[in-house]
């Protein structure tokens, strides 16, 4: 079976149990609706922020819960958006006098469940704000489709809104801030392998030795094209051009640069790739103010990477600098 699983039906629950066992003092777990929240978040005197999406993208989002980041995460099944009841329970749990902000990646399942939950919550008199994240340039944005996907750029929305909420920003300000981050962030990914959901156990797609899935999603959805293998530098150059050209990022821009591993990529290779990304940014006249190399938004054990670039201004730079604390402990 080639995965560390017990009964696949219990996979998400067992992961969450591991997570709270590892963070007994800082996380709380509502077992009925599988909501992970930061200890004490429900009493904090500020707007609280919640995000829900399918599981299998860890550390997104259950391991992005903590001071200065998310107040709560509502994980669905592996690659399946949480149900409406879960979303509603998440909103209710994080409700307070200043309202609740939810962040949602632009996938139809996520959008529909959160929209329904928002309607229900508002009918109960809860003030709800929402920010939709759609940073993936691999997917053409067009009115007769679902539009672009939300991928790792999401982390910058969480970080900025988390820091601003800690500073006391109100709900409308946070919505505007989240949209501003989303407007300024772009991503794209490539993969050298598929991934296996615990309940399926076969790879969602299989690649030949010489094939690359270009513009891949984070759910094992195949990308826009299957291309022939190239060197790391060539692949990064292709990805960089599409990401940087989309906003576009211009000479003189200050940026945050992220090379995100999709789950099965050696850390060494991520740094080989980051090296090229930083070089390309420099050549384009961009100043890399902050960088992030590691796993932020994964697709189980997929071997691949994504590049995310965020255009900064003084406000965003300050928010990225603010302290934050997440469950992952480095030494």
């Amino acid at each position, binding site marked *: 079976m080639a995965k560390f699983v017990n009964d696949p039906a219990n996979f998400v629950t067992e992961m969450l149990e591991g997570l709270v066992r590892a963070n007994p003092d800082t996380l709380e777990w509502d077992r009925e609706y599988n909501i992970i929240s930061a200890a004490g978040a429900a009493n904090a005197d500020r707007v609280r922020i919640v995000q829900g999406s399918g599981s299998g993208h860890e550390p997104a989002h259950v391991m992005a819960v903590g001071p200065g980041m998310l107040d709560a995460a509502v994980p669905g099944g592996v690659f*399946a958006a949480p149900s409406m009841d879960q979303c509603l329970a998440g909103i209710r749990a994080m409700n307070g006098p200043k309202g609740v902000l939810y962040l949602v990646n632009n996938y139809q*399942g996520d959008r529909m469940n959160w929209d329904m939950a928002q309607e229900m919550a508002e009918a109960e008199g809860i003030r709800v704000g929402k920010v939709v994240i759609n940073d993936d340039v691999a997917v053409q944005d067009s009115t*007769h*489709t679902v539009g672009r996907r939300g991928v790792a750029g999401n982390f910058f929305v969480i970080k900025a809104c988390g820091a601003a909420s800690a500073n006391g920003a109100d709900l409308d300000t946070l919505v505007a801030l989240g949209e501003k981050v989303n407007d300024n962030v772009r991503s794209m990914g490539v993969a050298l392998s598929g991934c296996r*959901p615990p*309940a*399926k156990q*076969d790879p969602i797609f299989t690649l030949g030795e010489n094939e690359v899935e270009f513009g891949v999603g984070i759910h094992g959805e*195949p990308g826009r094209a299957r291309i022939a293998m190239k060197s790391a530098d060539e692949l990064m150059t292709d990805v960089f051009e599409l990401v940087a050209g989309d906003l576009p990022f211009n000479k003189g821009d200050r940026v945050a640069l992220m090379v995100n591993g999709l789950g099965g990529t050696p850390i060494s290779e991520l740094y080989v790739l980051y090296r090229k990304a930083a070089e390309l940014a420099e050549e384009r006249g961009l100043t890399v103010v902050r960088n992030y190399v590691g796993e932020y938004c994964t697709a189980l054990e997929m071997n691949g990477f994504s590049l995310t670039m965020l255009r900064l201004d003084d406000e965003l730079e300050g928010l990225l600098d603010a302290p934050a604390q997440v469950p992952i402990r480095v030494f």
Partner: protein
Amino acid sequence: MNSVTMEDVELAVRAMIDVALENEAYFSDLDGVVGDADFGVSLATGFREIDAKWDTLDRTSIGHFFLAISQIITGKVGGCSGPIWGTAFMRAGIVARDKSELSADDIGQIFERAIDGIKARGGAEEGDKTLLDALCPMSRAFEAEKNGEPLPAVVAAAEQAVEDTRNLEARRGRQSFTGERSIGTLDPGCVAVATMTKRIAETAKQSA
């Protein structure tokens, strides 16, 4: 056609449960071709819960029965399937609200209102390669034959739909991100609807 009783409805839902549970892996595999391989799991999660709560479901009317099912689905099923199937059963429940028997017109209404609800919820139209591409022709087949014996025509429409959608490009749901690469693949939602419809017809025949 004869009017549909609570017993008929129960038989039909049981057929749906059986199809969802028997095909959990197959439906996920279909979704894995250009999607994210969770459709079978999502559908089975919902229908397994309906099965588990079977004896306690509100049966004061056919409408209440449908609403109870809708609530279980939106409560337990995430992804696109929760809102889509939940909305369909909710609309069916509203049409059948206090009824203990459904006429051919009622069934026609259920098709129409469910289709409208799904369109409103997910923004899809016929031709976007979703289960609407099964439901819409099924609804038309039903309307054409409703004064006679509509079930065979509806089954035929559903089976035809599975093949017809193969050549469409997905524009909704997770598989839409692959654009043209979705052409040539089956839509898992259509396959599920067609398989369930066929089973409902078989079970209905057996019990008749």
